[in-house]
């Protein structure tokens, strides 16, 4: 058995294939999450402020993207745009780069769009849980709005949002498996191919799960540290 493992993972190179997949997963996941959060914060703010048309639009976006399978989001984004992009790229003489880079870009955009929708809800909930009195104190001291936001609202809301964001991240890193539909071999797709070819599905799926777990375990410790940081000044309930 251990010999088999060696052959499968090293000599036939499947272990490295999985590792390559893991780097794709990590890259797409990190970029997607980051972009998602950057977009989600202002959208959550619009929603929180109950700005008439905007907040309905944000709600609509969030319900739509959370409501449909992630696969559809990436299908539509990719297959809906590829022709157009390819024509554009070819016109500018970038045939190859459109072929190679575009799936990655779309993958990141799709993951960002999804994680963004979930992050909006997390931030919205957290913002709504910030005690009004603390914001009133800021208002009464004539703090400019952006200062109130960055120095009072955000630190308190982030503390409340952290658990939710952690959930979104854990989900996002696994959602990256969606990018396999645009032809990128991330971790799960690599595992699926290896499983099919070597006829050892359990081994490879578990190996992939192990790698996912390693990734999330690292991020988990980071989250725990951040949580501790944000909890300064609060007695635990």
């Amino acid at each position, binding site marked *: 058995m251990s010999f088999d493992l060696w052959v499968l993972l090293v000599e036939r190179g499947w272990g490295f294939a999985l590792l390559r997949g893991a780097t794709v997963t990590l890259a797409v996941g990190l970029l997607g999450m980051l972009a998602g959060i950057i977009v989600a914060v202002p959208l959550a703010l619009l929603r929180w402020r109950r700005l008439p048309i905007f907040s309905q639009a944000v709600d609509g976006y969030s*319900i*739509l993207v*959370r*409501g*449909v*399978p*992630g*696969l*559809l989001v990436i*299908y539509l984004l990719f*297959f809906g745009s590829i022709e157009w992009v390819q024509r554009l790229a070819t016109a500018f003489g970038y045939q190859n780069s459109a072929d190679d880079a575009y799936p990655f870009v779309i993958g990141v955009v799709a993951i960002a769009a999804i994680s963004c929708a*979930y992050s909006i*809800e*997390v931030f*919205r*909930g957290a913002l*709504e*849980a910030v005690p*009004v009195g603390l914001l009133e104190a800021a208002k009464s001291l004539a703090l400019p709005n952006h200062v109130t936001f960055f120095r009072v609202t955000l630190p308190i809301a982030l*503390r*409340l949002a*952290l*658990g*939710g964001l*952690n*959930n979104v991240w*854990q*989900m996002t890193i*696994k959602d990256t*498996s969606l990018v396999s539909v645009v032809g990128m071999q991330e971790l*799960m797709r690599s595992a699926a191919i290896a499983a099919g070819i070597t006829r050892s*599905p*359990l081994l490879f*799926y*578990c190996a*992939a*799960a*192990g790698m*996912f*777990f390693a*990734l*999330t*375990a690292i991020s*988990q410790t980071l989250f725990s540290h951040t949580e501790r940081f944000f909890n300064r000044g609060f*007695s*635990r*309930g």
Partner: protein
Amino acid sequence: MELDLVTYAVPFLLVGAKITLLISVFGVALGLPFGIALAVIRASKHRMLSRSADIYCAVFRGTPMLVQIFVIYYGLGQLSAIRSNPVIWWIVGDSLHAAILAVVLNTGAYTAEIFRTALLSLPRGLIEASQACGLSVWSTFRHVRFPLAVRQALPAYSSEVAIIVKESSLASTITVLEITGYAKRLMSETFAIMDIFIITSAFYLMMNVISLTSLKLIERKLSFDK
């Protein structure tokens, strides 16, 4: 999109929708209390228990649900000890049961995280007030901590419900014929991949719009200010 494709596909998907609904309802009905219990254990002072609950959550949140469902269904199915135990085999042997189990175990871990943070963010004074009134640990939980935590957790949990509905599609990988299971058959039959996919998504969207809006109504109903 041709109309006859729609009229051909929808009856199949409707049959699948029943199963999707079934899995989701069980996912919420069993997963929610399970997740809350895990959250309470994680927040408890009992080192051993809270540690094991932590690990459980880390594992189930940290690995893809596809793998979890595979391990439960195909992995455990390989072991003869499990095949010979009628109770376990009743759960694991049947694909629908196994799918429900996987969904419950998975959502439980996420729900636990949602409620754990909600419980931790409650103002300490409110809990002290109930302790000082002589409410037992259980009553404090039932009447003060839980109702306050629910209000805090609801936005995040509504996302989790949408996820349950969508993740239930993984049941198709273990032969359960829910929406996605039928969709796969229809796709390979007609090759109208995009069209089938959009019809299928409309089904999921409909279910989620209903569940998300009803949760939003509950949220509004429970809020005590405004």
